[in-house]
């Protein structure tokens, strides 16, 4: 087990290097560079050749790409991600500002999704081919088939504009901080409702079908049949034997879902004015803000890899059938 863990950790290094190299090459070779982007936004009247060159030097763009990568890597060792080209702030600061909103939203949504989909999936599996199973499955697939930006706008129109019961802009109302803890908390929660719904409804189908599928596998196992044959009631069989064993695949699933959770949803962040990491990534790629792009992809990659690793380890640890060759 320990060697397995160590080996998996060792694999992280080439993977991470690979990710950074690929990202670096893609973003650097993409047409357009930050200095041009700056000019395109504003187009000065006659910027001189001298300042054009000076700006390129300032951003380190005068050096060949491999040198730039090595410089970046060397800085990384000291956890220095450099300063953003756009606003000259440390990249790490920009990211730490944007990560929490994304995490809060996505964790809430994940929690909600699991809360709903595990019971749904279990019940569907136990009552396979029942009306509930069929109708429920179909309805969930229908939900999944609705484009999220469309749903987001309809919800805003309904709850935000027509009924005016839910806020739909950003994370909090201006000035809510001064109202005291509980009103502030309530304000934050209200702001989260619509984005969380939009983020959740689509994954319900996927998750609950997954739970259903893995439960079915377990139900067909011999020990369940034995338990049933022993005369144990359905409910007890399900909760005592089946449920425990379906958690393993769900854990694996979490590993698959994590990348999307951490990188955030550009579209929903855009619509709900949510100051998250997806919007930041989008903006930095568009403006060719190399340091921010690199910092973001490195940090998200580390988080994703670590969490998949943990999910795998948990899985390996809890499932005796898996061998660590």
């Amino acid at each position, binding site marked *: 087990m320990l060697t397995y863990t160590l080996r998996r950790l060792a694999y992280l290094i080439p993977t991470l290097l*690979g*990710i950074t190299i690929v990202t670096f090459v893609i973003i650097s070779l*993409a047409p357009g560079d930050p200095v041009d982007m700056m000019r395109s936004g504003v187009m000065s009247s006659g910027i001189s050749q001298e300042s054009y060159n000076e700006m390129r030097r300032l951003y380190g763009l005068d050096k060949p790409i491999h040198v730039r990568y090595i410089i970046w890597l060397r800085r990384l060792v000291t956890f220095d991600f450099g300063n953003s080209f756009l606003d000259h702030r440390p990249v790490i600061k920009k990211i730490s500002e944007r990560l929490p909103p994304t995490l809060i939203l996505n964790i809430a949504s994940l929690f909600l999704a699991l809360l709903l989909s595990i019971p749904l999936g279990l019940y569907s599996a136990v009552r396979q081919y029942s009306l509930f199973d069929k109708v429920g499955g179909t309805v969930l697939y229908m939900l999944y*088939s*609705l484009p999220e*930006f*469309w749903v987001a*706008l*309809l919800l805003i129109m309904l709850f935000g504009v027509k009924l005016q019961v839910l806020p739909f802009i950003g994370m909090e109302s201006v000035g809510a901080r001064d109202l005291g803890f509980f009103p502030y908390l309530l304000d934050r929660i209200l702001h989260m409702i619509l984005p969380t719904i939009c983020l959740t409804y689509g994954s319900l189908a996927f998750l609950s079908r997954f739970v259903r599928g893995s439960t079915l596998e377990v139900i067909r196992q011999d020990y369940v049949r034995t338990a049933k044959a022993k005369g144990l009631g359905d409910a007890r069989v399900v909760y005592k034997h089946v449920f425990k064993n379906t958690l393993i695949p769900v854990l694996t699933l979490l590993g698959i879902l994590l*990348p999307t959770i951490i990188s955030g949803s550009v579209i929903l962040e855009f619509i709900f004015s949510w100051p998250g990491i997806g919007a930041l990534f989008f903006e930095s790629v568009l403006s060719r803000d190399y340091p921010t792009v690199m910092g973001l992809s490195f940090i998200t990659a580390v988080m994703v890899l670590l969490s998949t690793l943990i999910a795998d380890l948990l899985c390996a640890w809890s499932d005796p059938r898996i061998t660590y060759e």
Partner: protein
Amino acid sequence: MNDRRANTNNSAPQTEKSPGSSRIVWRRLRRDRLAMISLYIIVILFLISCLAPVVANNKPLWMRWNDRDYFPAVVDLFPLKHIVKYRSLQSMDFSELRDDASVRRVMPPVPYSPFETNLREKLSHPSRRHWMGTDDLGRDVCSRMFHGTGVSLKVGFVAVGIALLIGLLFGSLAGYYGGAVDIVISRFIEIVMCFPFFFLILSVIAFLPPSIYNIMIVIGITRWTSIARYARGEFLKVKKQDYTQAARALGVSDRKIIFRHILPNSIAPVLVTATFGIANAILIEAALSFLGMGIQPPYASWGGILALAREFIDVAWWLATFPGLAIFVTVTAYNLTGEGFRDATDPRLSLPEK
């Protein structure tokens, strides 16, 4: 055994006589009413996408002009636009012809081309003239919907085709050979998975001029990882089966083992994933349109119309409703078909007796 591959590959009903498992799968599938309805919907959509030029076009189906018979809309169906006879029609303005009563003709049911703008009728409500209203340039939404059908279906199929190709290749190599190959490929899969999806899309779009095919490629090359993982797992499983071991012992070549024995047996679950992938690709196309990175004008796609609707959501309900419904129905159909396939191809599942 080998027949199963052929069967699950086609979403259309199999007519050939094959006594093996494909029959069983088909029979099981037929009993699943929802899946069958979904399958029919997909077939109908395919027909619509093929027939769009004769269903919605501003060119007549038939017309009598200079004492000769012409079938301009029908010609649009085929890549035969350079037939000598039709050259004289090249520069004809069909939108003006529409109100010209002197020419005898039969028009398609939706007598508008998807590209024809008419600013005087911009954003008009659904009416007898425009069944689904018009967009902000006065183009007939109904016509655009018909012509967009093909885009959505094509995006789904080609993108998933690409994903399947890459995913199966990497997945099978990793699963079959194991060892160093597996480690390298698994790392590569991890690398790709770690990229935020739209970063890949943005970078591809920065390099390739955006067109419908590049959109398909983008979706394809970003969506193959789950298929590869699946394929790898299946290969690992099948590799250990007795018949594979036997083939190996008999000295059958690797290629033959992979293509003749393992692939057919591991492809069913992979194809199920692919069906869901098609559904997903259609949604991604819509999302890309939202970000302004969808297919190129003047071509229509459902996602494109829907993205436009966002601007006019409180004044032009028809712009959001029809493409929204179309996407919804299509994606649901694919998902339910996929679900049906999954049940039907799973030998371990027992179906309820009727």
